[in-house]
């Protein structure tokens, strides 16, 4: 850690024009932006900022144990509230540790402002102590980034960063601030407006296109809604539900879109894609009109592109023009913010009298696919099925928990078996698929909603990628419930090896696992273990009863259970491997 380069004098409070140091400006701007919580980790380059943070109470700082966790926590804070998440880390290793978190948020379009310290301006480019080219490293995984060389530009840059992060297609924005800039002084005034001649996201959809889209829906015999993370990001679940109900059409969600439409509703077909339901994938392959809203035709969703939705005219609404016709050529493109677009679609639908068409034959076909009962599993009284654990979690939390997950089979089971009726309850890393996301994400969600039950569904592999955060949970008394579906394997990897690598299990066995119960206890938490099916319910009940304690539930589950259905990578959606 470098020694302070400058001693600061106190500002006399009587001066008319308020002169603040860069560090004071950072904290004041965060406050003026309405930020209540910042997740971070200190180091030399950000010490002036930490010094200022410590002098006030409006902005709470949460000290994590690893910078990756700071960014994941800020990310989940945003996913659960819709606000912009904020993380603060130091230069060099602080910034590089944060990169995985930033890339995770970038892939899922989550609005973040990440503040990184940088070496003093005069040292930039000199291979100074703890110097990395942070804006260079993060350029491809941020929506935008800034290096602030002049304290006079600091307030405006922070304002712009928040605006960019939250508007249009959201995403993480990084502000790199050299240490000397945080010590220099200038007049502070938080700007009211952002001036960007080159950035003007489209909000309103083209009315002509929307009419055309609705006409297509009205005339369809086999319409299907396919909606994604854009519904969650734009807070338009209610508008979506209204439209889908009116059309009486079936709807499927991407992994990121879960909760955008009530899972318990009859019209909901479950998730689509690689581990989507039989009925959802079959509906995609047979529909005649596909209405894609805030979904980006990811390869995990489409399977083989040349066989995707072969009979469908496709309508696509997205705020990002680059999402449209990127992977799949669409027939009716609409650029706009879903909140505004769906409102207008609902009005137009009423005006056009849409919703009286009969889709009985389509629904009869769908019910037939549903009979296939593709998520079926059998719980015996000897070995715990991982699906059973998630189902019990769902029942015992009455579907009201915020569920975060890590990455792997457990993530898919959480998505398949925890029915989300509301948006912003399901928090996972879809685009980057970042193991280690679950626990810090649970921290962010629990900080945002202290009253909610937050469950982290994880695997014994993933949880070890940010296990140090158990310490943060202790410091801030976060009563998170960790549900570890411990199969002793990097299960998702093992499944691929079983199916596609002739059962050669290279490095997918998790040997030398710690005793998670003792580990939880060592961090001051409560550890519980379930070894047989009869233990599952009592363990969950006990964990939920301990309202103000963090509880680590270690479920020893079937080691070789697989996630079904599965569409092998590159196959058509209808070519599912079924149980």
């Amino acid at each position, binding site marked *: 850690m470098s020694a302070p380069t400058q001693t600061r004098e106190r500002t006399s409070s009587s001066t008319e024009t308020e002169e603040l140091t860069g560090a004071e400006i950072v904290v004041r701007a965060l406050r003026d932006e309405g930020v209540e919580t910042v997740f971070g980790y200190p180091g030399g380059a950000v010490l002036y900022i930490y010094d200022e943070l410590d002098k006030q109470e409006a902005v709470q700082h949460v000290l994590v144990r690893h910078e990756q966790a700071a960014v994941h926590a800020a990310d989940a804070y945003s996913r659960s509230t819709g606000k912009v998440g904020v993380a603060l880390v130091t230069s060099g290793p602080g910034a590089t540790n944060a990169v995985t978190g930033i890339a995770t948020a970038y892939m899922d379009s989550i609005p973040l402002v990440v503040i990184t310290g940088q070496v003093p301006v005069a040292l930039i480019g000199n291979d100074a102590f703890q110097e990395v080219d942070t804006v260079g490293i993060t350029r*491809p995984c941020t929506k935008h980034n800034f290096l602030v060389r002049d304290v006079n530009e600091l307030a405006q840059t922070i304002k712009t960063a928040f605006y960019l992060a939250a508007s249009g297609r959201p995403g993480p924005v990084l502000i790199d601030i050299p240490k000397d800039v945080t010590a220099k002084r200038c007049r502070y005034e938080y700007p009211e407006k952002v001036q960007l001649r080159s950035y003007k996201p489209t909000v309103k959809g083209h009315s002509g296109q929307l009419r055309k889209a609705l006409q297509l829906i009205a005339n369809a015999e086999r319409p299907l809604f396919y909606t994604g993370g854009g519904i969650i990001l734009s807070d338009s679940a209610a508008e979506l539900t209204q439209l889908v109900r009116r059309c009486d059409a079936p709807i499927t969600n991407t992994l990121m879109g879960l909760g955008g439409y009530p899972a318990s509703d009859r019209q909901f077909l479950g998730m689509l894609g690689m581990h989507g339901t039989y009925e959802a994938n079959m509906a995609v392959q047979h529909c005649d009109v596909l209405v894609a809203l805030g979904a980006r035709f990811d390869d995990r969703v489409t399977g083989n592109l040349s066989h995707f939705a072969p009979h469908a005219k496709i309508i696509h609404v997205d705020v990002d023009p680059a999402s449209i016709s990127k992977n799949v050529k669409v027939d009716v493109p609409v650029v706009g913010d879903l909140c505004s677009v769906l409102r207008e679609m609902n009005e137009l639908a009423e005006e056009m009298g849409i919703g009286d068409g009969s889709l009985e034959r389509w629904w009869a076909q769908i019910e037939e696919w549903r009979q296939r009962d593709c998520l079926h599993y059998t719980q015996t009284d000897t070995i715990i099925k991982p699906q059973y654990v998630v189902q019990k979690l769902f029942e015992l939390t009455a579907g009201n928990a915020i569920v975060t997950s890590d990455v792997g089979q457990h993530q898919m089971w959480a998505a398949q078996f925890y029915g989300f009726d509301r948006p912003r309850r399901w928090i996972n890393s879809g685009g980057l698929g970042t193991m280690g996301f679950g626990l810090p994400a649970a921290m962010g969600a629990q900080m945002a909603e202290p009253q909610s039950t937050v469950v982290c569904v994880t695997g014994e592999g993933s949880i070890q990628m940010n296990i140090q955060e158990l310490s943060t949970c202790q410091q801030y008394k976060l009563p998170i419930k960790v549900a570890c579906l411990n199969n002793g394997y990097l299960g998702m990897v093992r499944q691929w090896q079983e199916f596609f690598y002739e059962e050669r299990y290279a490095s997918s066995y998790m040997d030398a696992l710690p005793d998670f119960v003792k580990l939880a206890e060592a961090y001051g938490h409560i550890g519980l273990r379930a070894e047989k099916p009869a233990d599952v319910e009592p363990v969950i009940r006990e964990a939920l009863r301990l309202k103000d304690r963090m509880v680590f539930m270690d479920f020893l589950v079937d080691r070789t259970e697989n996630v079904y259905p599965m569409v092998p990578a590159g196959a058509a959606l209808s070519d599912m491997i079924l149980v």
Partner: protein
Amino acid sequence: MHRHIISVLLENEAGALSRVAGLFSARGYNIEAMTVAPTHEASVSRMTILTQGSEEIMEQVLKQLNKLVEVIRVHDLSEGPHIERELMLIKVHAVGSDREEVKRLADIFRGRIIDVTDRSYTIELTGTGEKLDAFLHALDPGMVIEVVRSGASAISRGAKSI
């Protein structure tokens, strides 16, 4: 696969150029040439990018460029009538009878000899990429000492700006 000339107006700021270059490499788009310099407005730079790709790829290239926060405007000049120019500076061996020969060739191509030694000429030539290629082909390859090309600059025909 078609050749496209894309004009990009962008904020004249540090890092803007690397954002565009990074976009092309990260997304695997082809770049044959790229030039950038400030315009009559000091805060705006203009970039000319020579690229190739299918219709679908070009649609993505334009959309992705537009998405960059510092990009003010993107235009595919190859969609309409336009003028393209590139500057080439070329240093060639020129001794004995070759001196006359090179001078004649430069004249045919409307090149100018801008530096002379007793053994070499340096020629300045502007035109389309094709014309510069043709000049290079017309020279005996053994004569060429050094070639510098600016990459294409281009502008639309008519009275309007992009």
